[in-house]
């Protein structure tokens, strides 16, 4: 059975739009417009999309914060809204811009309170906290009130807070937003370890595609409330024609651009001294061997496809960029 099973999930918001001086028209906006999603235990899923695409709205429906307009949702076999408190015992949530911690209390006290809130046996709680302390390096600021923590420190605290009850599913909404590079690496490293361990399911929304490339094998792209891609990152590249590129620098320019099977020529640069091929069916080794037979190679480099570019193209393709006025009432 899937840990997360979502069928035809919709969330509509009614917004009032000015129409004339006093009149306001009610208009229904679908923030999530029919999402289907199945996630198996232990998967690490990247859930991405532009602002206002419906990512957070989906997560809030999966955790029982928002009531869906229609559709079926099961998380850990539970219906999130009617069984909200039971579900809360089995999932962990980190919202990058919301805090689960007590602002005025030391971090340590927040963790102790959460033990009571989630009714965790003392020994299990202590064991998990010990693990997080060493993995996330919390010891330096355990006694600092949360309001005095830096964003990176607070996020490490939030991650710990979300894991102390041993959740089966961890939802992360923009966990690296606003973090400096070092903190981002720490958070990604930690999540990577958690994912590799294999029995916690991770669902991650982010704007930072490096998070996805580091962590998630499966990528769901949502735009205008609909799933526009569900599959591996490689499948995304395949579908949108992004290829690994081989850049070959030649000693002498070739008079005619060569035609090599399975690796069409993309560009010619530096007056014929630099040729850029896209790898389709040919391997890099075959291409280099074929080139070597034609010319003297000075340098070869392979450029990985840029996921940001692909996703930017994807967003552009599926509709006009989302503007603020069109989605005024629909939280992102």
């Amino acid at each position, binding site marked *: 059975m899937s840990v997360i099973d979502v069928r035809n999930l919709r969330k509509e918001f009614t917004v009032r739009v000015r129409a004339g001086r006093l009149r306001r028209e009610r208009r229904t906006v679908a923030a999530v417009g029919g999402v289907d999603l199945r996630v198996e235990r232990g998967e690490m899923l990247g859930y991405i999309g532009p602002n206002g695409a419906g990512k957070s709205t989906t997560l809030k429906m999966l955790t029982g914060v928002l009531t869906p307009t229609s559709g079926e949702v099961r998380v850990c076999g539970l219906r999130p809204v009617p069984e909200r408190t039971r579900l809360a015992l089995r999932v962990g949530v980190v*919202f990058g811009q919301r805090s689960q911690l007590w602002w005025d*209390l030391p971090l340590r006290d927040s963790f102790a309170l959460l033990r009571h809130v989630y009714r*965790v046996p003392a020994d299990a709680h202590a064991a998990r906290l010990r*693990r997080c302390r060493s993995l996330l390096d919390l010891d330096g600021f355990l006694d600092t009130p949360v309001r005095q923590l830096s964003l990176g420190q607070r996020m490490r605290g939030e991650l710990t807070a979300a894991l102390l009850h041993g959740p089966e599913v961890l939802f992360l909404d923009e966990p690296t937003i606003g973090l400096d590079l070092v903190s981002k690496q720490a958070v990604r490293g930690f999540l990577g*370890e958690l994912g590799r361990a294999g029995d916690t399911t991770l669902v991650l929304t982010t704007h930072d595609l490096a998070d996805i490339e580091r962590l998630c094998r499966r990528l769901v792209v949502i735009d205008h409330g609909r799933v526009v891609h569900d599959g591996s990152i490689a499948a995304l590249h395949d579908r949108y024609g992004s290829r690994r590129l081989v850049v070959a620098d030649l000693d002498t320019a070739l008079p005619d651009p060569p035609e090599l099977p399975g690796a069409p020529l993309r560009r010619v640069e530096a007056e014929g001294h630099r040729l850029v091929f896209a790898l389709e069916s040919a391997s890099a080794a075959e291409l280099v061997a074929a080139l070597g037979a034609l010319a003297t190679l000075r340098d070869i480099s392979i450029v990985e496809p840029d996921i940001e570019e692909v996703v930017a193209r994807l967003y552009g393709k599926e509709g006009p960029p989302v503007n603020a006025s069109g989605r005024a009432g629909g939280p992102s």
Partner: protein
Amino acid sequence: MAEPAALPRQRPARRLRQRPPRRPRQPPGRLAAYRALLGAQVRSQTSYRTSFVVDLVGNLGGTVFDVFTVLVIFGVTRELGGFTVREALVVVGLSSAAFTTADLLVGNVERLPRYVRTGLFDAVLLRPLGALPQLLLMDLPLRKLSRAVFGVAVLAVAVGSAGIDWTPGRAALVVLAPLAGVVFFGSIFVATATVSFYWTESGELANSLTYGGKDFTSYPVTVFDGWFRAAFAYGMGFAFVSYQPALALLGRADPLGLPAWAGWAAPAVALVAAGLAAVAWRVGIRHYRSTGS
């Protein structure tokens, strides 16, 4: 790095099966969780001792003033709506004991619009506890304790000096009526706060019903008139907070002609109000829209 795989995992499904059979909807330890939340609140509020004491004293002001207003009115008239000063003070006492206690326990729910705006309400919904009890406990305004004590004291003094002909029924009523009043005002607080699930800027409407209701119940309803009295006193039930129970305690017939049992109806009215407030809360949560991330 060590392996998080080894994190011991809690199995809530198994825990649920061990629940005591007599309380099927309460998993074990929920009460302990609420107690811990309350404890945290007490610790963070009393950590600044001086300002806490200043708050305690400052909060007395409003309620003392309410009683004072009624006494000043009796400085220029001997009767108010057909009530002498001692009788009117029973009405004041019932009203202030009920309102100040409800304000201490539930009044904080009026901060819901802010919680909705700042996203704190999301965090509340993500925890495995009831949303309303969490809200009330997380921000319980202990500084209002002084007012509640004063409100109950006013009731005690008023009842003591009103020359009540004590019967077992009246003794029960003098305890039950203020409790019903607490439930009634609490219901008004909760019901009006739910408006903010639909409309975030809803503070003034809530105030007109809660603080307006407190002012209304400080006087015998006979001082009001017409549709206003009909709507507030009987349409919304405010007469059953102080006026009707006061009549029953004092052994007076209702000048407005309601039968004697109306004086004992406060608990029933409070239960109806609580039921309606619970429905409003549940429907409101279903309509909660959250805010952008």
